[in-house]
């Protein structure tokens, strides 16, 4: 049975496909902000700290997704405060959050009674297990991110381009930066469903980094990154179904391959217009 026949028949594949489409939109938008603002490391910190919240929620018998959302937002606010005034130990604190979050999650999951298979699916994702309910939540979070980005696009652009100038124009740079990191946190939670928290950074940064090589504006970069994300999630799903490969890893490898090809191809937008 080919991938396309399978989609028509299996609801879980349809869910996975829709999940991938929704994730591509946030990846395109938020990933572009992450790449131009160079906060990939911060996003990595948030992604790994999330396991702490998921583990605690799991231990308490609550929905891991709600634990993920709360811990991601907490980590985002914490990191935004640490980075606010150029703290000297900024990278150490983010590394600590990264490791402590993961360790907390692993401990709580280990101490949860009963057999648990979920740890692997948190770490590496399990897009084939996405439920109808998950999709509605992801769609809602997607909507929040699109709406916020539309409403505050010019302020976010100024923040990413030249925070000092943005401050001088009366923009509350610190608050806006916290909100941007909260968008990253929400995106991380969405992506954990698709590729798992270890590979979040691949889908968050690589499509946007690829798009950046061709786009002349941030908006163009977001559209292109979304399209690339669509290609990667759909292609990754098809490949993993056809050849029986882990979905998250396949998508992450496709992202890497895509970026590698893009930087090796000679005709790039800012190369050709330079000089």
């Amino acid at each position, binding site marked *: 049975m080919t991938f396309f026949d399978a989609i028509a028949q299996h609801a879980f594949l349809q869910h996975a496909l829709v999940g991938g489409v929704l994730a591509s939109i946030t990846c395109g938008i938020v990933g572009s902000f992450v790449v131009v603002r160079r906060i990939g490391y911060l996003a990595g910190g948030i992604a790994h700290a999330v396991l702490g919240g998921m583990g605690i929620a799991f231990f308490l018998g609550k929905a891991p997704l709600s634990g993920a959302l709360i811990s991601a937002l907490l980590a985002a606010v914490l990191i935004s405060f640490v980075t606010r005034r150029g703290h000297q130990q900024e990278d150490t604190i983010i590394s600590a959050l990264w490791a402590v979050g993961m360790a907390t999650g692993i401990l709580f999951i280990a101490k949860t009674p009963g057999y648990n298979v979920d740890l692997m699916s948190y770490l590496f994702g399990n897009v084939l297990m996405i439920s109808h309910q998950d999709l509605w939540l992801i769609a809602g979070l997607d909507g929040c991110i699109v709406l916020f980005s539309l409403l505050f696009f*010019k302020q976010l*652009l*100024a923040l990413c381009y030249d925070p000092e*100038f943005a401050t*001088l124009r009366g923009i509350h740079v610190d608050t806006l930066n916290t909100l941007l990191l909260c968008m990253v946190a929400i995106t991380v939670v969405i992506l954990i469903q698709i590729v798992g928290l270890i590979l979040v950074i691949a889908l968050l940064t690589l499509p946007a980094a690829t798009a950046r090589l061709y786009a002349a*504006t941030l908006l*163009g970069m977001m559209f292109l990154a979304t399209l690339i994300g669509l290609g990667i999630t759909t292609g990754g799903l098809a490949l993993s179904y056809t050849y029986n490969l882990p979905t998250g890893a396949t998508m992450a490898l496709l992202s890497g391959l895509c970026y590698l090809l893009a930087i090796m191809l000679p005709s790039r937008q800012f190369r050709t217009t330079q000089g």
Partner: protein
Amino acid sequence: MGAAITLDNVSFNYDDRPILENINLTLHDDDFLGIVGPNGGGKSTLLKLILGLLEPSSGTIRVFDRAPEQARTRLGYVPQFATFDSAFPISVRDTVLQGRLGKTRSRVGYNRHDHAIAEQAMREADILDLRKHPMTALSGGQRQRVLIARALACEPEVLLLDEPTANIDPHQGETFFDLLHRLHERIAIVLISHDVGFISRSVTRVACLNRTLVCHATTPVDSESIKHLYTTPVSMVHHDTCLSAKDTP
């Protein structure tokens, strides 16, 4: 003629190291003030204090008789280009439009009035034909003009420029000062440079800054004050005109 900016006994320390000491300065609204001095003399710090990006350790700063943070949208600031990412995907027009932030009445994006002002600013800075170009495609001098246009789009009453000549080759520098001359007809300008000869031809006042500030009423900076400023004897090139330059040891 009124005072646009006043600094009264302003000092600034960074980790107990004095950067600026007892600065007194009044900038009138028709001034074209050049501030010269060696690297590390506190020039950029002085601008950041005026803009309210830094707090003075002691003394008071008033901008249009208000605290700097409250008045800074009335100032136009042209930073040194090196402070942000030159590979950022943004067009010239979108960069200049950022000057409308804080003034635009449009909730989302910019309205026609903002576009008209940005266009006027680009025309004035002579970059209107570059408006659709990405910033990455511009030369150093062109970028500098974009940043000036962005500052002009703020409709400032005072224009502050930090080392604007750093990226410009000498020929471009000439037309650059023509531009500043034209702007000075309607707004006050503060220009920072380590390039003494370059600055002294255009400005109405020169101040020398090396932790302390020494103002000179008229343009030519004499060799004594420069030696004093740089503490070691410097080889000076005095430009009488563009073409004849003679050494005064």
